[in-house]
């Protein structure tokens, strides 16, 4: 039956975004950010970024100037988390983290422990070429082949490279401190786990071109050779 009215379709969706958490003091944090951008100018390119200001207790002018500073650095802000809604001033959407109703939480926990969430892993059976990006927000990525200089792998879980790793790899990119990186030959431009990263220049020379494993210990990215 047609009513003659246009129909609109709405649906709820959840998407992955990079959450950036500024630290007080903001000025010092911005200086660190600039240092990061100098080393990796494309770090935030084409990425959606959420600003988490919870626990910072910023005043409204400080908060608005933080937004200005970030947009001046071409960081595109999708929304803000943990701010006072009146401070946001309509400049960016105010995000509320999805939370289960507290009374149901115990039950949900019980169900989850019975049946662990299925982990999907992605297998790429070819070399990853310069300029290609593999983004897998659901689990591990395994590459049977090399990852070329100028290629990028982003995974929610661990990353395994059965070949030479010459590009950029970001494991645990959606918040997973337990993610690891394995490769047959380390020659990477950048490796990162849960936002803690190390660039090629900072890799100990004796680890270069060797098979390695990388993991997070505290806030430190550890790499050991697996020879």
């Amino acid at each position, binding site marked *: 039956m047609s009513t003659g009215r246009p129909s609109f379709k709405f649906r709820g969706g959840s998407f992955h975004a990079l959450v950036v958490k500024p630290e007080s003091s903001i000025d010092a944090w911005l200086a660190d950010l600039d240092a990061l951008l100098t080393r990796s100018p494309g770090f935030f390119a084409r990425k959606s970024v959420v600003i988490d200001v919870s626990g910072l207790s910023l005043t409204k002018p400080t908060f608005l100037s933080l937004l200005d500073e970030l947009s001046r650095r071409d960081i595109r802000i999708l929304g803000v988390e943990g701010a006072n809604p009146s401070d946001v001033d309509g400049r960016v959407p105010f995000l509320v983290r999805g939370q289960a109703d507290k009374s149901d939480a115990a039950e949900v926990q019980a169900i989850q422990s019975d049946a662990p969430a299925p982990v999907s892993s992605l297998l790429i059976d*070819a*070399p990853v*070429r*310069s*300029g*290609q990006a593999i983004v897998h927000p659901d689990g591990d990525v395994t590459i049977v*082949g*090399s990852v*070329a*200089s*100028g290629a990028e792998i982003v995974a929610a879980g661990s990353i395994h490279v059965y070949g*030479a790793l*010459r590009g950029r790899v970001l494991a645990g990119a959606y918040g997973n401190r337990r993610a690891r990186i394995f490769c047959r030959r380390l020659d990477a431009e950048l490796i990162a786990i849960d936002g803690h990263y190390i660039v090629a220049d900072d890799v100990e020379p004796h680890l270069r071109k060797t098979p390695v494993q990388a993991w997070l210990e505290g806030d430190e990215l550890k790499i050991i050779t697996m020879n």
Partner: protein
Amino acid sequence: MAQVVVVTSGKGGVGKTTSTAALGAALARAGERVVVVDFDVGLRNLDLVMGAERRVVYDLIHVVQGSARLSQALIRDKRIDTLFLLAASQTRDKDSLSDDGVERVIRELRPSFDWVICDSPAGIERGSSLAMRHADLAVVVANPEVSSVRDSDRIIGLLDSTTDKAKRGEQMEKYLLLTRYDPVRAERGEMLCVEDVLEILCIPLLGIIPESKDVLHASNMGLPVTINEPTSAAARAYNDAARRLQGEQIPLVVPSDRTTLFSKLLGRRAA
């Protein structure tokens, strides 16, 4: 039906045009019907290297836009009568190439030739993407240096994702042509060696063209090196590469001019 070959590299100045001309001439000398097509609209050079720059009346753009027929734009080589050139326009740019027009030109060329060799412009923009789109096979030209190899790697990724063949779910055949190779300097570590390049690119090797003054000399003469100096090391390497394209199994060696001298001496002794 012709095999459509794209000669591509990503980086400029590595020898795409020289290799297109040399491979085209080598195939034509072997009796194949060959057309070499210059896709570098606005920066055309293939006509110069083929020595046909004074005979261009109509070009690829005229045919693509329908203002000339293909038969009017094809220029027959003066030395090898199975070799043809379809020149690019120097006064236009890559935006003049329409998707439909290029597809029609390639479709019309296929029945009349054994080989359609498309000389891609440098870069990854419209010109190079149109040059590779309809190809059956790709010759990836690289120099033994890191920037060239990385750009070639990028091009291989595009060959595997943006071409018609890739979109049909088929595998594009890709071969590496390593040009300007100097075995002595590679030995000294001043340039990448063959193994380094193959390890990064992971595609089969079509040939290794040694660095040679004969190549530049032939280009300046307006002659593909395989016609101008057929006995030079570079020409022999291109001839071998052309025979491998035709499906022959030839062992890969890096030809050098010293061997020529040696075989000349042997030849004299035998005489």
